């Protein structure tokens, strides 16, 4: 049984069909990459999957539950975490606070408990803080927990945004260009992190433009163009697909 099953998904903005009759699935533990030219509908697809946009038609089934039309926070609670294309973190807060907010959905805290600082609330906050520290050490930011997030390097901010999504304990993690805007030398560290997350049992759906990275780490690749799936398969199959080469990869990939 597939972890995520998308069938006949459509999204129409005014006269523009951003996602067109899309079908695909993600298996448990799989790393699926979404590639395609700019404007192909990749980020729109992420917004549809996570409830930020409502599909015009079609269904999204996750873990055997129909999550079409769920609100973003509900989707997250069902087990889909995401990062955003433009690195989204709370720049004014500390690194630890960022992850704690990501972890807060697992905390039982109320107004009265928070104001009175009841032992139960304090225990809960401590538990969340410890969990957040564990996640920070997983993404190798353990030594930076008291730094203000906005002062980190772009690479560390990417790590932080991934750790925030991880804090929600996703079964499927959607990464929107996790290496965008990062130095070439620093990319390998992020690729390593993606591998590590995958090894821990989380499925990953990746939007990426860096083809060498996509080809080396993906189990399967889905290629979008003008909102339509034009190809799907293993990296090798996709790299040799004539339409993909024409629409996206360019002739130098035809080998």
């Amino acid at each position: 049984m597939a972890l995520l099953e998308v069938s006949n998904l459509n999204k129409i903005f005014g006269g523009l069909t951003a996602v067109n009759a899309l079908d695909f699935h993600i298996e448990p533990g799989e790393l699926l990459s979404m590639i395609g030219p700019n404007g192909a509908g990749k980020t729109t697809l992420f917004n549809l999957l996570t409830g930020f946009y409502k599909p015009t038609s079609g269904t999204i089934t996750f873990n055997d539950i129909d999550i079409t039309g769920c609100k973003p926070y509900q989707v997250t609670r069902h087990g889909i975490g995401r990062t955003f294309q433009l690195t989204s973190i709370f720049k004014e807060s500390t690194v630890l606070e960022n992850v704690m907010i990501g972890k807060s959905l697992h905390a039982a805290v109320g107004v009265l408990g928070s104001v009175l600082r009841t032992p139960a609330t304090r225990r809960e906050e401590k538990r969340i803080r410890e969990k957040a520290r564990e996640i920070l050490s997983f993404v190798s930011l353990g030594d930076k927990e008291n730094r203000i997030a906005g002062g980190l390097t772009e690479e560390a901010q990417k790590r932080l945004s991934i750790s925030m999504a991880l804090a929600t304990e996703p079964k499927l993690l959607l990464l929107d260009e996790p290496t965008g805007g990062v130095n070439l030398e620093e990319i390998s560290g992020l690729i390593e992190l993606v591998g590590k997350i995958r090894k821990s049992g989380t499925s990953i759906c990746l939007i990426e433009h860096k083809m060498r990275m996509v080809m080396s780490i993906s189990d399967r690749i889905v290629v979008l163009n003008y909102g339509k799936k034009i190809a799907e398969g293993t990296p090798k199959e996709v790299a040799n697909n004539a339409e993909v080469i024409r629409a996206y990869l360019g002739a130098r990939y035809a080998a």
Partner: protein
Amino acid sequence: MLTLVCIWSILCISLNLIFGYTGQLSLAHSALLGVGAYSFGLATAKLGFPFWPAFIFTIVISGLFGFLIGIPALRLKGDYFVLVSLGFAVIIGLIVLSWVELTGGANGLSGIPRPTPIAFPWGGKLRFDSPLPMYYFVLLFLVLIAGISYRLVNSLLGKTFIAISYDENLTESLGVNTMSRRLLSFTVSAVFAGVAGALYASYNLVISPDIAHFIRGIDVLVYLIVGGTATTAGPIVGTLVMVAIPEVLQIVPALKTLINGLILVLFIIFLPTGIVGGFNTIPSKFLGLLRRLGIEGHGIA
């Protein structure tokens, strides 16, 4: 005078919670204040409730009111919420003026009591008829509300409020139901404003529709920006400064709004973080300046 500063400070703390920390600019705070003042006034003067039951009644009504108008208003985000909140402020202002049977209309509502005297264990009573005990009574509430607000925004729950003010979509994507958190913040804010309204009614003994005029919501916003949004002391410092300035300068009331506006513009341009926020940044700016001078010095050497 200082008693009023305390009451407006409570209202300002209320606005700080929803605007400063949660990022939702509400212009409805005159309405929330008015609902508090009139709930308290009606409960005591018309229904004959003693002070404390009326006070509890006011808290319940204010919270309920905040919750009920929050549900439709907070569905809207950004500027749309600002407009709708202003709409509520105007509507409540009109209702208290026009529903004469209930509110007494422009004549207002009189016969509102001071707090019930408290009996000392050694005999005698603490009465609130004179200004000084009333001032301490209100000050006690200011400290209480400021304390509640401080604890709330420094809790994990409060961190999610602040997160919403920074980036609502990101917060939502982390599994936080941002609509319900904003509604919670607005409801707590409404309770604070209701407390301010009840204290005002009890202090002033009479209330008139003036109390719920929407301009008051904007005045309090100016206090907050001058004092410093999203700071603990900002609402109190801002209120104190902005109430004191016209008093000290002996400005005629007509000019007050003009001066307020001028001060607001100056603050937004030169010190958008307000007085308290400025205290937190000025030292670092000063150090930066020193460092620059130091580097230049080295260059010369």
